């Protein structure tokens, strides 16, 4: 145990408070017995029990107790620190308790609620609280790390999401660097012939028309003085940490370097490539993806006339749409549902029925998924217009004698179908954009099982990871409207962060002991976040130095260090050992 805390008796006085949680804890744990047992411990100045510490009365109670007894450290036996710990800690903090001298012991989720036997649960709670008491004595007072945020943002990806985010941030008065890999803005949405729900041209998302005046416009982005658009550019490297990152971009006219405070990743998605699935016969010219059909429709719109199929320019009379190509089947692509394919296939089918009135259009689906407002009406209109919906998977697409056949099953009718087809359209699903894994790696982000960027908290989409937000299809398959939603929420978070200018992060970071460190560099090798560097120690040797802004506090370096020089603040060896010993004292009897 740290000596400096034990010698100073005023500093080692502990206030111990137990929470009944309105009976939720006291029903299963005998709190009075615990209080009796622990109040005789040397450093415990006061023991209190309250009905609900997280309530307003509870907080007032804590504040009064703090003023009355003036303890320097506090242990709370209550619910999980991840649930109400912040509220309870704040009350004491207001009265001058350093929040790093506070320990909340979880006796509700991990004790009261899972053990029916009151004696055993009480014994366990006693051990846990004893561990907390031992631990709190070893803690040291700290201040939060204050991080300043530069007032400029980088948006990676110039699609609908990236453009919307850039426009919003620029409107708030901040400098935006908008990076686009291709030669034009607009992303994939710009190439669409029509979009849901207006069933109108996709270009309308980019230009002025009364259908969608609120969606981002390429001209606006290009004319905005605050937005610096970089086309044909890719990120070369990202250095630095939260609030101040140095970006090097590979642009056509040489490398470009600048610093940004925040980053929005809007790298978007690409469509599944069906050539790996031989049963789909994608090599045949008349088997096309929905993206290619979009181009046919756009071409028709420009040239007039009717839709012409790629092989011989004939107007197709029988058209089959195959749903879920590359989606919802791990063996054949990806497990996730791409969310937009049902909607866009119905839209395209309606367009084809309109353009070729005597055509028969089939949609082969597993089940139709369109959790959007207006989807059911859209689907209903398609049925009215004569689109044929066939439930069932297709087994293969094959050509014989210059003719194309689709072998399908109609599970509603219980029949096997062999449909001679002029044109087959594959509704391909969405995958993360090419090269996004490189950006994910550079920014130390996580990807989910579907390889899209993972949310920190799936319930709260714009939650950030150290100044970096993912928006739009980079974060999962999405339609245009939802990508714009995402862009706006990410932009508003970025703006808030940059307006504040600074942010406080808990000081749970690594620290190198100058006397113990001998500069071997093992910690540098294991650090995931490039937070540790070796510097000259002025005596001809080297020592490790931790960048507090970059360090996320995982503690990998503390184990790698063979000289016990690296510690995580709050989880140093004496602190964890004290916790272990406290538990052993009670539980190891």
């Amino acid at each position, binding site marked *: 145990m740290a000596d400096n805390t034990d010698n100073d008796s005023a500093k080692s006085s502990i206030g111990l408070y137990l929470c009944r949680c309105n009976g939720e804890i006291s029903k299963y744990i005998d709190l009075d017995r615990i209080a009796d047992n622990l109040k005789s411990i040397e450093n415990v100045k006061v023991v209190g029990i309250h009905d609900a510490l997280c309530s307003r009365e509870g907080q007032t109670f804590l504040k009064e107790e703090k003023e009355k007894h003036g303890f320097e450290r506090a242990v709370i036996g209550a619910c*999980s*620190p*991840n*649930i109400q710990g912040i509220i309870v800690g704040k009350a004491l903090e207001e009265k001058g308790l350093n929040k790093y001298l506070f320990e909340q012991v*979880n006796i*509700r*989720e*991990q*004790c*009261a*609620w*899972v*053990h*029916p*036997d009151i004696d*055993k*649960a009480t*014994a*366990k709670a006693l*051990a*846990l609280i004893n*561990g907390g008491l031992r631990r709190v004595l070893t803690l040291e007072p700290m201040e939060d790390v204050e991080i300043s945020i530069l007032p400029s943002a980088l948006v990676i990806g110039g699609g609908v999401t990236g453009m919307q985010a850039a426009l919003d941030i620029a409107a708030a008065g901040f400098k935006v660097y908008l990076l686009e890999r291709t030669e034009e803005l607009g992303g994939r949405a710009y190439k669409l012939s029509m979009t849901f729900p207006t069933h109108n041209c996709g270009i309308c998302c980019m230009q002025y028309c009364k259908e969608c005046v609120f969606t981002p416009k390429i001209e606006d982005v290009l004319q905005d003085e605050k937005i610096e658009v970089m086309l044909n550019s890719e990120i070369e490297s990202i250095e630095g940490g939260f609030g101040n990152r140095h970006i090097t971009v590979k642009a056509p006219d040489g490398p470009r370097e600048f610093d940004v405070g925040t980053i929005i990743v809007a790298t978007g998605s690409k469509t599944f490539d069906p050539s790996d699935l031989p049963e789909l016969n994608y090599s045949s010219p008349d088997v096309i993806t929905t993206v290619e059909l979009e181009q046919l429709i756009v071409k028709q719109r420009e040239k007039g006339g009717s839709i012409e199929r790629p092989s011989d320019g004939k107007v197709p009379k029988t058209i089959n749409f195959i749903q879920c190509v590359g989606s919802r089947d791990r063996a054949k692509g990806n497990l996730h549902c791409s969310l937009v394919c049902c909607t866009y296939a119905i839209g395209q089918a309606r367009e084809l029925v309109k353009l070729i009135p005597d055509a028969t259009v089939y949609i082969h689906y597993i089940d139709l998924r369109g959790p959007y407002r207006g989807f059911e009406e859209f689907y209903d209109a398609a049925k009215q217009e004569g689109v044929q919906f066939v439930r069932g998977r297709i087994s293969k697409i094959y050509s014989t004698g210059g003719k194309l056949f689709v072998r399908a099953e109609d599970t509603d009718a219980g029949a096997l179908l062999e449909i001679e087809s002029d044109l087959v359209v594959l509704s391909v699903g969405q995958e993360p954009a090419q090269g996004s894994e490189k950006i994910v790696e550079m920014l*130390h982000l*996580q990807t989910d*099982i579907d390889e899209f960027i993972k949310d920190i908290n799936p319930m709260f989409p714009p939650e950030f990871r150290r100044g970096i937000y993912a928006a739009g299809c980079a974060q999962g398959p999405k339609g245009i409207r939802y990508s714009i939603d995402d862009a706006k929420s990410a932009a508003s978070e970025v703006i808030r962060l940059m307006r504040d200018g600074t942010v406080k992060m808990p000081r*749970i970071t690594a620290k190198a002991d100058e006397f113990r460190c001998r500069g071997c560099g093992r910690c540098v090798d*294991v650090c*995931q*976040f490039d937070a540790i560097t070796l510097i000259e120690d002025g005596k001809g040797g080297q020592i490790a130095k931790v960048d507090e802004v970059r360090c*996320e*506090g*995982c*503690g*990998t370096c*503390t*184990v*790698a260090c063979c000289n016990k020089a690296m510690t*995580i603040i709050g*989880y140093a*060896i004496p602190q*964890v*050992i004290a*916790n*272990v*010993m406290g*538990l*052993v004292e009670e*539980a*190891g*009897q």
Partner: protein
Amino acid sequence: MTDFKPSILAFCCNWCSYAGADLAGVSRLQMPPNVHVIRVMCSASVKPEYVIKAVTQGIDGVLVLGCHIGDCHYLTGNHRTAKRIPLLQKILDEAGIDSRRIKLDWVSAAEGEKYQKVVTEFVEEIRRLGPNPLREVRF
């Protein structure tokens, strides 16, 4: 031997396993009261000496729980844990301590039931193994 009450420590990472243990509580999944959780930021910050300290102090078993591989909040922390713990088990075996007293498993924040299962099975296992022989010595 029937009155042997194993005392077990569990090092849970803050992001997955600790939250998984909380979820087990919220779901009221009953389990034996022998496992005491110590919160650490990442399973990769569990120093082997913490485990050794616990075992030499008479603790009957130690669980190390982390995020599933690929799910680590710190990207690859648990990859290191996955290498370190088997090594530690080997060392303990050499020192005459049954390595089955140390167990590494992955519990995500959504796996309250798995947490219950891991805890219940481990307590059973330790019960079968009997008390830690170092319980009487404690050095």
